[in-house]
Structure formats: C-alpha cells, structure tokens
C-alpha cells in the first residue's frame, strides 16, 4: 500500500443543448464561420441587456433531479469580472453564492465491482466565453464570439475520488447522464464536455487535505487519466524530496504528457463577484420542478436494474449496456427483433460489435450495422442455420460489406450441415486418412478427440453442426 493518498475533485463543464444562447437569441450551433452567431448582446454592445433562456433553467433542473440534488427555489446570477479579449462584457455571468443545484450525488461502479458514492457539491448555470484564434494570424489574435453566451452547467464534485481511474469512471458516468437527459451532446472534441481536475495528495490516513493543483480544460477521458497520474507522481516526488506543493493552476500538455504551471495563487484574478443587477433572482417553483420531473427519461441506474431482471443479465453486463442511451436502445432493439436469447444478444453487442465499432472509432448510432441486421444474424444462430463460430465469419462480412446475415450465409455457402449422412461420410474420410492417430486414440489417448473434431470441421469447411459432430464422432471412433 502506498504511503500517499490521492484526493481528486472534478469541475465538469457541460454545454447545454439549447437552440439559442443563455442570455440572447443567437443560435448555438457549432462550426459556423467566426462571429456569424454573435448578436449585439453577445458582443456586449453599449446599452444591451441579458434575458435568461428558460430552456437552460429546465435543463439544469433536469440534471439536479437526476442526481437527487436540492433545487434552489431562488438562485442568483453573479458577475465574474476579468478582462480578456474573448470575454466581451469584461465579466462572465455565472452563479456564485446561490447556485440552482446543490447537494447531489452519483454512484460509480469501479472495475472491481466496488460502488463508490461521489458527492456533487453544486451545479450552476453560466455563460461560455468566446475563443481566441491564433492560427493563420501571425502576430495577431483573432476573436470568434460564436461561443460567447453558450449556456454551460458547471458540475462541481466533492473531493471524493481517490485515483485517476475513479475520476474517469465518475466523469464517464456524468457524461452518460447528461446525454441520457438530452441536455448536452457530450461532444468532447468540440468542447461540449470538458473538465478541470483538482488534485492533491496526503499521507495515507491523515484527515486534512494536501495543497491542491487545478489542472484546466481536460477534454478527453484519456487526458484526464494521464494528467492526474502525472500530477500525482509530481506532487509525491515534491513531497518526498521535502519540497512543498504550490497552490496553482496547471495546464496539461497532451503531446508531452505532462502538466505545467499556468499561474500561481498569488497571480490569480480577484474576480470581484457580485449579483448581476441586470437579472432578477431566478425563482423556480414546485410546479416547474414537478413538470420537469414528469418529463425525465429512464435514468442509467434504473435502466441497468431493469435490464438485469428483464433480460437476466449480470449487473456488470447491464451496466455496460446502459452506459449510453444509444447503446441501451440498440441492445433493446436487437432483443425485440431476436427475442430468443437476450444473453446471446448482450454478448454480441458488448463483444464483436463493440470491438468492430471501437476499431473504426464509430458510435453505435453510426448506423454501420443496424440492430435489425445484427438480430438477423442472432436468429440464424438460434435456429442452428449456422454455428457460433461461423457466425463470427458472417459478422465480419456483414460489417465489411453491409450485407444481411442471410445474404452472406447464402452467397458463401455457410449454412450449417445437419445432415447425419454427410457428417458421417466426412468422419469416415478423416479416420481413413489418419490411421496412426486413430490407433492411438483407441489405445486410450482421449486427448486426440479434439484433433478429430478439428479435422472434420476443416473437411466440412467449418459448417458441420458441432453438437451432431461430437455425438457422431464419438460413436465412430469407438468403432
């Protein structure tokens, strides 16, 4: 056991999937030409005022209900003041002392099956800033304010995680949740879902927290894990050599795989938060909350529990299949079309399908192999048209060529051989070609049974029904 304990808290920024911005009517779509989705409010023009988008409030309440949090009947928007060219007003509208969501939690299942409850201190609404552009502008900085005013919910956890793996498991859980709730598209490359990690270490068994470093703007699960692991090692090395950890903000460099100092506590901005006088306190009443609650979808944990009982799956399998709403929907569609064996469907979805998708970096929703197609393959296994082994071959062709299972089975002649006479003939030919092995087997070397199975399978192009083959072969070998 290590002498040091790691303590991690995450601040996750999830971009809310509203059509318009949080305080203006501009569109939020990603990828438009610079500054084409920024109106006078987003540009911070003299005289303009913010008006809150109620849809963003609804989404924040959805999140709050899904994490069993307290929804504040009255929350307050505050101004966070600092100068930066991509911050048009010179302040960001956020929530400070009174956030809309507080005191929630999520349960995370670790790889070893342990369940850990992660506290969520708060989740607050705020606006995103614009972007500074440097590429293709030598000696200058371009400003794109399309993103300025995009609604964000910042989800702040308690320092409840004890390893990079736990942090990633928690982040994945939040990622799945916001997508289930359809409040965030979860697109990490586009920055729709990103996080800052607060990392510290302390001697194992001590109650007080060590000095933390905040690692900014981590936009992939892999970077979160690597950045935390690097940071933990760095801090332990400092402490073991008798040097202090400095409270500071650090940046992760994915190319070098290291974190480096961005600014220390002393250099940190004094944001001079105060309630935004342009916005009234946000009031959320019980009727509003009830309406949002009534519209909540089945949540990941509820769905996993249902999968386990309804389809007879292990808790682990149910958890994997419900990790995303798309995967869960896909699985249920497969089972609906091929209801004979839900367990078999689970194995295929989590096994061959997941591997194939992963290899090409595709999502289950890509449509590359529809649920109906996969169900077609499973039906041919269930009705014994093909064996499980042949099915893998059929799957590969289906995946590569986009064909149906039946078409592949027909065109490649892979239909399973169940005709006893044909299998017997193949067995006899193999026995005739391998007299030495036959003699050894009959002399008591049982292990050679497998050899004969392989040879007959080879002779039948792998199509012999395995159960029938076993039975007939046993009878023939015994003579």
């Amino acid at each position, binding site marked *: 056991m290590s002498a040091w304990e790691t303590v991690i808290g995450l601040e996750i920024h999830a971009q809310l999937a509203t059509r318009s911005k949080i305080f203006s009517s501009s569109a939020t779509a990603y990828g438009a030409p610079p500054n084409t989705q920024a109106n*006078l409010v987003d*540009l911070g*023009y003299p005289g303009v*005022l913010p*008006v809150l988008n109620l849809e963003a409030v609804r989404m924040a309440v959805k999140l709050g209900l899904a994490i069993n949090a307290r929804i504040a009947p009255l929350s307050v928007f505050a101004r966070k003041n600092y100068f930066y060219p991509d911050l048009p007003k010179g302040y960001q509208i956020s929530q400070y002392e009174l956030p809309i969501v507080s005191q929630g939690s999520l349960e995370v299942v670790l790889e070893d099956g342990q369940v850990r409850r992660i506290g969520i201190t708060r989740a607050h609404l705020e606006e995103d800033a614009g972007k500074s552009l440097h590429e293709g502008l030598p000696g200058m900085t371009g400003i794109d304010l399309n993103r300025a005013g995009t609604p964000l919910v910042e989800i702040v956890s308690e320092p409840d995680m004890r390893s990079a793996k736990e942090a990633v498991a928690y982040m994945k859980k939040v990622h799945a949740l916001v997508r289930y709730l359809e409040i965030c598209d979860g697109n990490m490359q586009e920055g729709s879902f990103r996080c800052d990690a607060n990392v510290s270490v302390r001697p194992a068994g001590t109650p007080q927290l060590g000095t933390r470093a905040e690692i900014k703007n981590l936009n992939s699960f892999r970077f979160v894990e690597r950045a935390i692991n690097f940071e933990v090692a760095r801090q332990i090395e400092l402490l073991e050599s008798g040097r202090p950890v400095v409270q500071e903000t650090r940046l992760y460099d994915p190319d070098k795989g290291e974190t480096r100092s961005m600014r220390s506590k002393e250099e940190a901005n004094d944001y001079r938060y*105060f309630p935004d006088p342009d916005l009234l306190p946000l009031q959320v009443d019980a009727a509003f909350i009830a309406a949002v609650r009534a519209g909540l979808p089945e949540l990941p944990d509820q769905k996993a529990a249902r999968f386990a009982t309804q389809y007879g799956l292990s808790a682990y399998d149910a958890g994997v299949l419900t990790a995303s709403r798309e995967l869960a929907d896909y699985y249920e569609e497969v089972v609906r079309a091929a209801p004979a064996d839900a367990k078999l469907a689970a194995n295929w979805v989590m096994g061959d399908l997941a591997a194939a998708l992963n290899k090409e970096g595709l999502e289950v929703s890509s449509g590359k192999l529809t649920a109906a197609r996969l169900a077609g393959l499973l039906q041919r296994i269930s009705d014994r048209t093909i064996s499980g082994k042949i099915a893998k071959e059929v799957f590969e062709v289906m995946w590569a060529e986009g064909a149906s299972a039946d078409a592949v089975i027909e065109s490649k002649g892979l239909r399973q051989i169940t005709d006893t006479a044909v299998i017997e003939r193949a067995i006899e030919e193999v026995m005739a070609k391998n007299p030495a092995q036959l003699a050894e087997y009959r002399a008591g070397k049982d292990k050679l049974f497998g050899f004969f199975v392989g040879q007959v399978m080879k002779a039948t192009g792998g199509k012999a029904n395995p159960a029938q083959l076993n039975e007939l072969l046993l009878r023939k070998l015994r003579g």
Partner: protein
Amino acid sequence: MSALHSHTLTQLADGLRRKRFSSVELVGEFLARIEKSQPRLNAFISVAAPAALEAARAADRALASGAAAALTGVPIVHKDIFCTAGVRTTCGSRMLENFVAPYDATVVAKLKGAGAITLGKTNMDEFAMGSSNENSYFGPVRNPWNPQLVPGGSSGGSAAAVAARLAPGATGTDTGGSIRQPAALCGITGMKPTYGRVSRYGMIAFASSLDQGGTLTATAADAALMLREMAGFDPRDSTSVDTPVPDYVAALEEPIAGLRIGVLGEFFDKGLDADNERCVREALKVLEGLGAKVRQVSLPNLPLSVPVYYVVAPAECSSNLARYDGVRFGHRCENPRDLNDLYRRSRGEGFGAEVKRRIMTGTYVLSAGYYDAYYLKAQRVRSLINADFIRAFDSVDVLIGPTTPTPAFPIGAKTDDPITMYLNDIYTIGANLAGLPAISVPCGFAHELPVGLQIVGPHFSEARVLGTAHAFQRATDWHTRIPVGYA
C-alpha cells in the same frame, strides 16, 4: 401661432392635430434656436437636422391624412445616453466619440412610434457621472439662467435645452438625481419613474440597479404625456416590470384635497440654503391651501444615502464599463504594444477623471477582503432605507422636500472637491436606492435662480406624483418662467 417655442409640449401636440401650424415649421423653429444657442449653452453633442426635417415632412403627411399618433410631429431631444440608430451616441465620453449604435433604445423606439421627432442628442456628464455637467468630454453645459453657472447633471444638456426652449421635451436618466437635480437648477419639471417602469434597453448603463429613464419638460402635464408613451414592460429588459401603464394624462385632474403629505425632517438639514428652504415651505402652504394635509415624517436611515450610493453605484459602474476595452467598439489607442497596453491606454485615454475615480472606487469595494465591509454592508443599509420609505408610505401618500440643497453654483466651484459635489444629490439619491418615482417642479427663486420642489411617491404611483405636481402648477406660475434671452 407665433413663437411656437414658448408653448408646452402638450399645447404643441394639440396645435399640430388642429393644424394650426405644421411640424416642418415647428421643427425648423427649434432647430434654428438650437443652432443659435449652441455657442452659449453647449447643450447638444449632436444635432440631426436633415433627418428631423425629413421626419417632420412625413409627420405632416400623417397629420393631413388623419393617421396621427399621440406625439406625431412633436420634436423632442434625447440625452446622449440613449442609443439611436444612425446618430452617434457618445455618452459624453471620448470613449464613444464616434460610436454609432446599430439599434434604437426601447425608449427611443417607443417615442418614435408615438410620432415624436428627434432633433438631436443632448450633452451630459460622461457616462452620467456628475452633478454639474462639467464632466463631459464635449465641454460643460451652461445654465440658461446664468451662463457662469452649471445647469446641474448629469442630464444637464436636456435640462438646459428645455429651460431655454430649444425643445419642448427631453429624455434623461436618473441614477442618483440626474433628472431631478438639473431640472431644479434650470427651473423645469423633471420626472424619474419607478425603477422598472421604463425600459433600460439601449440606455447605456452606469449603475444598473439605480438607472431609470425619465423626462425633462416644462410642466407635469407634459411629463405625463411623454411618460405615457415611454413607459411599459420590455421583454428585452429583465428588470422592467410587467404591469399596465395607466393613462397619466387622464389622471392629472384628480383633486388633491385630503392628500396626505409627509415632510421629510431629514431634508431640512444644515446643508439646506435658507432661501431654498423658504421656497419649499411656501410651496407646502400652497398645497395645504389645495386641501392637502401636511405632517412631519422621519426616515432615520436616509442620511446614509450618500455613502451607500457611492459604494453601490461605483461597484456596478466598475463592472458595466469593463466592456469599453478597445477591442470591439469605442476608442482604441494607437499602436498597442500588447494586450495590457491596449487595455491600459485605450481606457486611460478614453475615460475622464470622474469616470476613472468611480471605476477605481467600485473595483476597490468589490475586491476580496473589502466586499463584505463595503458592498454587502451598503446593500444592507439600502434595504433599511427602502424599508424606511415603505413604512413612511403607510401614513402618507407622498413625501415632499427640496430637490437640492442650493440653487445652481458657478462652473468650476466644486470640481476640485468630489465629496462636496456628491452632496448635491443628498436629497435625490434616496428615491433611486428605493426605486421610487419622484419629480422635481419649480417652486420659486433663490438668489434669482430657480428652486426645485421634490415629490416622491410609493412604487408605481406615477399618476399620483404627476397629479400632485400638476395641481401645484395649476396654482402657481413658477414653471412658466423662461430665462432672459430665451423667451
């Protein structure tokens, strides 16, 4: 009808509808007066003569076809803090010297929609920070009653323009007295409505929780007419209030017999000029003569208004003015070396001394370690002041006192001493902190200079405040006095 300029806005609107004169004649006369006055008064930053005459021709066509609205063809002027598409909006600052807003403020759009014609944009203290109009980048405005004196501020240009009959009505904004104080010092009527009654959209922000648009006119009846067209809920301003706008004009004639008037003991303090006090006391007698019941009331926390205001307003302004960074609009310094140089020089060159003083004060009171002692405490006292007012309105219908401690003072007399300057607003700030409607009406002369009487009512009691002022003006003629040389 000769000398059109000497008529009230209400009379002019009526005359246009009766076709006793044309809008082109009216606009032409006022434009000529503005041009002639400019070297003496400097009341305007921009004049929109061609556009005004064009609009006047269109108004005359509308009047001829019987398609006229309440203010069709009536010329007005806007304080240069209201954004106007096509005419620059400077806010009295070098920072916005060449800024042309791509949109009309809601107030501008509403008055335009009611048929009013904009003659130009009036001079003001930079970003509405000041009580003398000496803080304008475009030079001080002079008081039409005596060009050696200030007109008050920050809506000094609007007040001087109406007093000198360069326009029958003007918009203004009032954060701590910026409509009422110059109205008092220029001998006209200045109305600040309830916070939230008039949209702030397009009104360049100084202190968002205090700023409120209003009117500067010769009479309370004119204020009622203008305000009726300006007021109302605006979905683009979250702090505007969604309650119906009464017909303030129709409500003017309500009798004030039995009206319970509270006289604020705190306003008759040692700072009050004896002649000012005499005028106010005589005005109270006039109101008593009309059947009002006068009694003494006390608002114990009111004397804390000035310190509270000079924490809250700078705090909000320090944040509101952060957007003037030289990046997207407004003044940008020449050849910035880097980002910090761009910020430092653009803002250093673009803002004047008083604006910088308030930005620094506001930054200080919001900073870590000082927030609780200054900003938070000021907000607490602000609620106490608000509670004082609400308690007072349990037993009285309106509160009455002086608008200012003294009449107009000489240009340059207080520029070296910001604290003395700030005390000018000692009687007006309370209504802003509590968000109450308040009006200043002329009530006599001290040292041959106009004196203002202030009437404050409960939230959304504009009709009562205007009605009280109107009753007073029917019984007196102070509001008809025009400075020598402008009659």
